């Protein structure tokens, strides 16, 4: 009870510090009088009595302070006073204060944004129970050695049954058109699954139900929708369960909807059971997802997988397991880690700048501190004052930083390449914000404490004099070191950014083997939606597209020139019964080579007369001729048709993004009809301007056809280098910031140098030194720092380069141009900042300066 009562009183007094003060004055005064009376009674004179009374009491102010401390929470009052004083001091230096707060905001904002991304994409476990148990299984040929690839259904049955696995599922995705009454037909990614996908993930539909065992074994026409698609196409209507939708023309019943961001693979929009036909086809198109038994590991499962795969394939194939999380982030990990490192370096630069700003301010205030010390302020109170100022700076910067972080994160997500897992889920959450604030406060303490402690020492010093001032300003070694570090860090970041930029430049300059600019691809899967001859439909589409203003040419093909892989078949020359070779074949329509911009280097392209009734013709690419030398006019036999093909032309290789072309031959879709593919349209100007109108017009003519996938071909090429483009953009931003921050650092250093040596400079100028000499005096120490910072940074960049290795294409991490560029740029910018800072101060009139002393 009494404890609570006391707490209450103290709180009241803490917020009303003057309350009780009058009473205290009165009581202490009366105490002194009583003591004086006593002393006089003992025979002391009035003056002596006054002195003894004060000695016996132990100091009037001291007594009052003791009383105040017991009466209220004095530190609270001190903090309040420090805060208001600090605000006044900060307002008196608006430039320095806003510079400090803004740079803190940028540093902390960037870090919260980048660490949010890192947290979600790399660190946060997948949103499924016991996510570490989830694995992906890959197989590869051992003889001959092949790239990691998917599984056949037979392999899934063998490997999915391994003892290390608790449950397993396999899926393959394909693009299909979904239509239903009342909705626009759309292209969707359909995952055809077998095994127990939802049980393996531990995630189930939130509306409706999962597939039953019966539906799985019979391959029933039932589907589960992804949350996104459900919202987009069905406006989140729960009554969708039980509705019939057509997928690729075949009716399916919707039985469930997954929760948001759940389900695998992440891009799937619809799941349906693998049909019996699809199981039997023997295609190597199944991805295996499995859950490990809790007592085993991915490594141990790999051993078993390899054994099983070798056993069933007679040692021709092997298999291994990878943790799902690791498998899904493998390609972006390096980029995100590099980003995080860059963001942390930026924060370091920011701290250095804020420290410099705070200590520059504190140097000017040495005299103030000495006076406060002489008036009885304790060291703790003086340093508390400075720490409070830095804390206010830090809090201001941190608060603003969270705002900046929110924007930066939105910006990051908006420019991020597709394919970064879980990016859509990333948000600034409480943990990251808390971490950001903690980092801020630590930063505030760190940068405030050093000058605070240094200055507090003055408080106990001999009193106000100029030697006190000099003692502080001469100690700029710490600041010089900070600027050196800043320059070095900025060099490292700039070097990294220029490496990435050169890599990007290299990628952009790559010859694709076809003209990707001004090329539009319209995905077409008319199957089921369109009654009639697809060949006729394609012809109609092409003729409509060609009449559209701004269109140069149009053609149909099954695949896009951005992909070199495709169907393969055994091919041999008819004249020579040698062993057949596996070749890729590509069905394309008339005008394809012209539209895609692939050169015909010999013979001719496909023409109207290459009809179904005419003799079969083929156009081979150069890679084909390298593996199977043949001439125009020669005949080929293939395993997909009885009729031999006559080579009528030779086309150039396509090398999208620099990938070498496969040995391939093109056939005409008039002779080998296709069910779906793409309409390629070459435009005369920027295709972006034409896309909306073109889409609308084609859709108007053929309303049943899904027209939601229309894109620039260059875009899909770019997606291959999207990660590097993204990283380069960010790295350039970071490098720009680093450059700016270190320029501010250099500026501050020189400005500090000038104010510290103001008198000396004024004297020199007064006795006839030139402004150039005086300027050189102040920037000379800075040049030394710039040069050593640049060298340190250069060495740093040289050793940090390999970290970027996996992000670089066609550029060595020790690329001379990129590495030389950074230190030169930094030195130049630094010198500029130094000259600016020096010149500003030198404009002052030396006579005025001297008179003021």
């Amino acid at each position, binding site marked *: 009870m009494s404890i609570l009562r006391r707490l209450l009183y*103290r709180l009241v007094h803490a917020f009303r510090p003057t309350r009780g003060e009058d009473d205290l004055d009165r009581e202490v005064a009366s105490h002194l009088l009583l003591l004086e*009376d006593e002393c006089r009674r003992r025979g002391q004179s009035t003056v002596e009595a006054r002195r003894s009374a004060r000695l016996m009491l*132990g100091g009037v102010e001291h007594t009052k302070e003791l009383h105040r401390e017991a*009466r209220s929470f004095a530190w609270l009052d001190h903090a309040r006073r420090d805060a208001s004083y600090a605000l006044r001091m900060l307002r008196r230096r608006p430039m320095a204060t806003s510079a400090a707060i803004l740079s803190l905001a940028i540093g902390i904002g960037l870090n919260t944004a980048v660490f949010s991304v890192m947290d979600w994409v790399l660190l946060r476990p997948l949103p499924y129970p016991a996510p570490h148990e989830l694995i992906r299984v890959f197989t590869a040929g051992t003889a001959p050695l092949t790239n990691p690839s998917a599984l056949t259904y037979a392999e899934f049955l063998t490997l999915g049954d391994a003892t290390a696995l608790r449950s397993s599922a396999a899926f393959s995705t394909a693009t299909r058109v979904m239509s239903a009454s009342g909705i626009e037909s759309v292209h969707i990614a359909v995952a055809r699954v077998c095994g127990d996908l939802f049980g393996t993930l531990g995630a189930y539909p939130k509306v409706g139900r999962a597939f039953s065992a019966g539906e799985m074994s019979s391959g029933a026409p039932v589907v589960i929708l992804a949350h996104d698609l459900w919202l987009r196409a069905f406006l989140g209507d729960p009554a969708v369960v039980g509705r019939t939708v057509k997928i690729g023309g075949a009716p399916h019943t919707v039985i469930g909807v997954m929760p948001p961001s759940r389900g695998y693979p992440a891009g799937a929009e619809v799941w349906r059971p693998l049909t019996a036909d699809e199981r039997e086809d023997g295609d190597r198109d199944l991805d295996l997802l499995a859950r490990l038994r809790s007592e085993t590991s991915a490594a141990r499962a790999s051993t078993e997988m390899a054994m099983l795969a070798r056993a069933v394939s007679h040692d021709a194939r092997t298999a291994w397991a990878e943790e799902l999380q690791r498998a899904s982030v493998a390609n972006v990990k390096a980029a995100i880690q590099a980003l995080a490192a860059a963001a942390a370096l930026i924060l370091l630069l920011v701290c250095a700048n804020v420290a410099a700003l705070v200590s520059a301010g504190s140097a000017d205030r040495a005299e103030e501190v000495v006076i406060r010390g002489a008036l009885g302020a304790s060291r703790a109170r003086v340093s508390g004052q400075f720490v409070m100022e830095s804390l206010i700076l830090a809090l201001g910067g941190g608060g603003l930083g969270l705002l900046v972080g929110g924007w930066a994160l939105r910006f990051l997500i908006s420019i991020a390449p597709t394919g970064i897992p879980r990016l859509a889920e990333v948000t600034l959450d409480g943990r990251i914000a808390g971490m950001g604030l903690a980092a801020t406060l630590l930063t505030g303490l760190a940068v405030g404490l050093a000058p605070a402690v240094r200055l507090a020492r003055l408080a106990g010093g001999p009193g106000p004099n100029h030697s006190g001032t000099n003692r502080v300003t001469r100690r700029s070694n710490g600041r010089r070191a900070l600027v050196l570090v800043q320059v070095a860090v900025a060099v490292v970041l700039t070097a990294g950014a220029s490496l990435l930029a050169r890599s990007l430049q290299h990628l952009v300059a790559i010859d694709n083997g076809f003209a990707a600019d001004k090329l539009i691809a319209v995905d077409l899967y008319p199957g089921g939606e369109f009654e009639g001859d697809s060949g006729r439909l394609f012809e109609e589409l092409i003729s409509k597209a060609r009449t559209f203003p701004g269109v140069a040419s149009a053609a149909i093909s099954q695949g896009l020139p951005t992909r070199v892989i495709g169907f393969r078949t055994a091919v041999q020359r008819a004249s020579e019964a040698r062993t057949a070779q596996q070749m890729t074949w590509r069905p394309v329509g008339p005008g394809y080579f012209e539209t895609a911009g692939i050169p015909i280097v010999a013979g001719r392209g496909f023409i109207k007369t290459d009809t179904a009734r005419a003799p079969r013709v083929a156009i081979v690419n150069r890679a084909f001729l390298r593996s199977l030398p043949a001439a125009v006019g020669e005949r080929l036999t293939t395993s997909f048709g009885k009729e031999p093909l006559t080579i009528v032309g030779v086309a150039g290789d396509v090398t999208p993004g620099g990938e070498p072309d496969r040995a391939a031959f093109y056939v005409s879709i008039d002779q080998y009809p296709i069910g779906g593919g793409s309409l390629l349209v070459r435009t005369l100007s920027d295709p972006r301007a034409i896309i909306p109108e073109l889409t609308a017009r084609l859709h108007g003519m053929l309303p049943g056809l899904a027209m939601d996938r229309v894109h620039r071909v260059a875009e899909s090429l770019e997606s291959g280098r999207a990660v590097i483009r993204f990283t380069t953009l960010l790295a350039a931003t970071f490098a720009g910031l680093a450059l700016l921050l270190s320029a501010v650092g250099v500026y501050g250093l020189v400005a500090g140098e000038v104010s510290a040596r103001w008198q000396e400079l004024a004297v020199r100028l007064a006795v006839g030194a030139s402004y150039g000499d005086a300027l050189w005096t102040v920037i000379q120490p800075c040049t030394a720092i710039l040069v050593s910072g640049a060298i340190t940074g250069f060495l740093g960049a040289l050793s940090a380069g390999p970290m970027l290795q996996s992000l670089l294409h066609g550029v060595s991490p020790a690329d001379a141009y990129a590495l030389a560029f950074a230190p030169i740029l930094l030195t130049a910018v630094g010198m500029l900042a130094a000259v600016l800072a020096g010149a500003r101060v030198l404009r002052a009139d030396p006579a005025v300066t001297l008179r003021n002393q």
Partner: protein
Amino acid sequence: MRADILPGTLEIIVLRTLTAMGPQHAYGIAARIEQVAEKSIRLNQGTLYPALVRLEQKAWIKGTWQTTENNREAKYYTITRSGARALAKQSEWWQRSADLVNRLLTDKA
């Protein structure tokens, strides 16, 4: 040898003084403590104030302004009923602790 007052004991000493002397001002309390301690205790009289504030805030003592016999005004503190209870409790506790310490220090075995 002169010693500082054992930390934490000042409050109970003040309460005890007020019980023994009746209402008293800060100087009177200090003078009385010095007199009882016979100069074995070093006391800046100002250090009494925190204890007085604490006791007053706990409502164990109550201060009122009165006039001394020499016609000086002074703040006289009176022990309250809850103050008396607290004193009883704390002196008992002190006695027992002191006894224990004493026995431990003089134990010959």
